């Protein structure tokens, strides 16, 4: 995948593996997601792990409810999604505030640092405000080398505090695609 030069030089850091280690340390058993390219490596690691059930959702709001069910059953989970998917979760996030269960969400950002596609910008710019309006604590990771500790902090906050916490993985970390590099040359 072609990425712009805006991507953090620190993406040489293997931050997906850092996230995976945090999920394992916390004995996360259910990882649900609507896929995003930014989560590709982490998802592969989760799928290859015999103790993690990876569930592909049709829409992100399912994940908010699925993780309440998992928690009722004694399992920890994590929801992976792209920032545009946050918009699909809004009413379902009522569960987090009303039921006060640990809800850990890892959001790969679009529509902010170096975005190419204007259609991604509205939801990307509203992601933090949307989640905060629904009572979610939002942390950002702007540097690859800080991703692991930020996700660790979010997991502690969520699982110890029984609250909803999201980590936004910015395009500075994950890189911003320039579609022109993938397109047919213009005639």
């Amino acid at each position, binding site marked *: 995948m072609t990425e712009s030069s805006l991507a953090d030089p620190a993406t040489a850091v293997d931050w997906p593996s850092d996230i995976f280690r945090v999920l394992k340390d916390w004995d996360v058993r259910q990882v649900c997601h609507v896929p995003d390219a930014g989560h590709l490596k982490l998802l592969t690691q989760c799928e290859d792990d015999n103790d993690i*059930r990876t569930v592909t959702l049709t829409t992100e709001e399912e994940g908010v409810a*699925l993780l309440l*069910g*998992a928690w009722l059953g*004694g399992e920890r989970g994590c929801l992976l999604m792209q920032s545009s998917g946050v918009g699909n979760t809004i009413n379902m996030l009522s569960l987090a505030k009303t039921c006060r269960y640990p809800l850990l969400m890892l959001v790969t950002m679009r529509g902010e640092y170096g975005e190419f596609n204007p259609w991604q910008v509205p939801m990307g710019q509203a992601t933090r405000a949307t989640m905060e309006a629904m009572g979610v604590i939002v942390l950002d990771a702007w540097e690859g080398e800080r991703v692991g500790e930020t996700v660790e902090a979010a997991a502690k906050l969520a699982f110890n505090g029984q609250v909803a916490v999201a980590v936004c993985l910015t395009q500075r970390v994950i890189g911003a695609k320039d579609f022109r590099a993938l397109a047919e040359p213009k005639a």
Partner: protein
Amino acid sequence: MNSNGYSLKRRAVVAGLLADRGDDLLVVTGLGGANWDATAAGDSPLTFPLWGAMGGALPMGLGLALAQPAKRVLVLTGDGDLLMSLGCLATIGVERPANLAVVVLDNERYGETGRQRTATAAGVDLCAIARGAGFVATTEARVESGLAELHRLARAADGPTLSVVKISMEPLKIVMPPRDGAYLKDRFRIALLGEDGIF
């Protein structure tokens, strides 16, 4: 429009489904009528009744079923709630939890908001959709004789199963369970996991 042509009574159907439930049956209800019906049959810490979060009952049931494969998980919900989570039928069909059963109390109306017609009133076939999504068994009960198969798919058969029961429209009193979500969560976890459930 005080009749939808069906005669089965929802409270009796649900009471039958939940009879002799024991500790091995975990129940999630959708919001509205399904909640009141399950509560009328007997409030239980192992029932999680939703008061909101429309469309949430199915995915909640899936997460619970995956976490507790040795228990039977029953999602009781209405046609309106199920129609809001049709995509989750595919999610469940892919995961195929053998311990998950869904029962749809289908009066073909949005019962809480003035009995507006739902898509099932126009013939949308939830069983066909569920089968297409990978559910291993479905049934639709319209009369008393269909309830035995409904009970079997809800309580015993390998899942995921989806059963539709066509019910009459009735003016019923609301029977309310506790409505604090954190309390409902904690009491469920304690009943299922023991005192450690609050941690």
